[in-house]
């Protein structure tokens, strides 16, 4: 189990290819917060996202924030209150179009993606990072600033741009080589269930 540090957005695809399921990763740079309604707007309602997602790290989140005011262009400025991560599995169907149409390279959430994410992540060179769900007090300390908020009307399911420092540690849940911890754990558990049922 190796440890890595990766800065996002990435420009070199090898930054993703070097990661293997089970590795530990700390992230620097900028990450983008996204959630159910944000992705429904992009893909089901066909609205182009007003942020560049090339090489991006997406975080499944709907942060708790405090509004500080509005800038000269009418956009809200927010400070963090409590920022944590939501369950990814609800949003698995957006994985392929995020990678194919927008060149997103990393998706981070909690609880994992089902097996349907493995093939597109391998083909498109993407990775899924597992964060510890519920550990929002810690996560909040690693977010230095909320730099940009788009689609405020979807509050709190907006597009959020965060600057982070030492974000993590994250565990590589699904890598770009077809490896998935979730697949492996589930396969072992299904075998174990047969044994447990026989004992009941």
């Amino acid at each position, binding site marked *: 189990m190796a440890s890595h540090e990766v800065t996002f957005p990435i420009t070199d695809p090898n930054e993703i290819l070097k990661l293997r399921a089970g590795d*530990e990763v700390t992230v620097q740079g900028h990450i983008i917060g996204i959630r159910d*309604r944000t992705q429904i707007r992009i893909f089901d309602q066909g609205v182009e996202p007003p942020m560049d997602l090339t090489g991006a790290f997406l975080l499944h989140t709907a942060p708790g924030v405090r509004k500080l005011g509005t800038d000269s262009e009418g956009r809200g400025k927010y400070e963090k209150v409590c920022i944590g991560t939501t369950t990814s599995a609800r949003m698995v169907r957006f994985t392929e179009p995020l990678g194919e149409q927008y060149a997103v390279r990393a998706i981070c959430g909690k609880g994992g993606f089902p097996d349907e994410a493995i093939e597109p992540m391998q083909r498109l060179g993407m990775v899924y990072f597992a964060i510890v*769900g*519920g550990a929002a007090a*810690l996560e909040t300390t690693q977010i230095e600033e909320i730099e940009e908020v788009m689609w405020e009307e979807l509050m709190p399911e907006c597009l959020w741009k965060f600057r982070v420092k030492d974000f993590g540690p994250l565990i590589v849940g699904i890598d770009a080589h077809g490896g998935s911890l979730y697949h492996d754990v589930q396969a072992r*558990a299904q075998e174990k269930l047969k044994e447990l*049922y026989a004992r009941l």
Partner: protein
Amino acid sequence: MSTEVTTDLAGAVEDAAAHLYVWALKDIPQDLRDALAAARDRETSTTGKRVLEIIHKNVSIADEQKNLVCQDTGIAVYTCRVGEHFPLHPARIYASLKAGTARATVEHPLRSNAVHTITRENTGPNIGYRLPIVHWDFIPDWDGLDVKCVPKGSGSENMSFLKMCVPADGVKGIKQFVLESIVGAGGKPCPPGIVGVGIGGSADYAMYLAKEAIARPVGTRNQDPIVAQLEDELYGLLNETGIGPMGLGGDVTVLQCHIEHADTHMTLNPVAVNYQCWAARRASAHIAADGTIDFDREF
């Protein structure tokens, strides 16, 4: 006969609710802290241990910074035990719980999660039509009120399951359904948490009982020894599945299995599963008939 209420009891219940909601979100109960510490000590997988260490670090940071343990402020669920002589009608208690929930959400501020179930538009500061949710219990020969607040996050609530087993499925059917539900849930409900199981009653009541079960102090046992034995057995079986902390594999899949039961129809055998994440937030208060609030009472 009219009763003169000299104290603002409605205000006291509102104050209690406002305090309980935020308190529950920030300061997890000692029984849960102990269960998480024991989990960290016995976990042998590297990744699982790492996850449990991060959980501990997170709880410490929430304590130090007075921040929320988890960002999901949930749906506010209250359990009320109302004494028959408590001098405020449950209709007014409900209104006060709602006002307190809204006040806490606005004043802190807390993330507001409440939406209309079809339009998905926000309905207010964690309140809406039939929100918050209240479980009621009425106690004879008593003039007090106990209020417990359980903010219920969606990650774990989405992992709720119901099966109308038939009598021929027996207790074996109940065990199988709980096992397959928790394995199927994998990492999604933020394991290791509390598995609440409701058995008997009717379909809706089994689920209600499952929610009651997750709200109990961690590791308490059902008063019926037959049910308590099933709690112990399921706890052991669930921790053999290898799902592990956050579903990444390991020894500790659940902190506890709590079961609540009701007698049922001779041809019914309902089993409901309600999951509570590791951040099993819970806070309680006792409100006396004179409006005095005691925040130390646990139930």
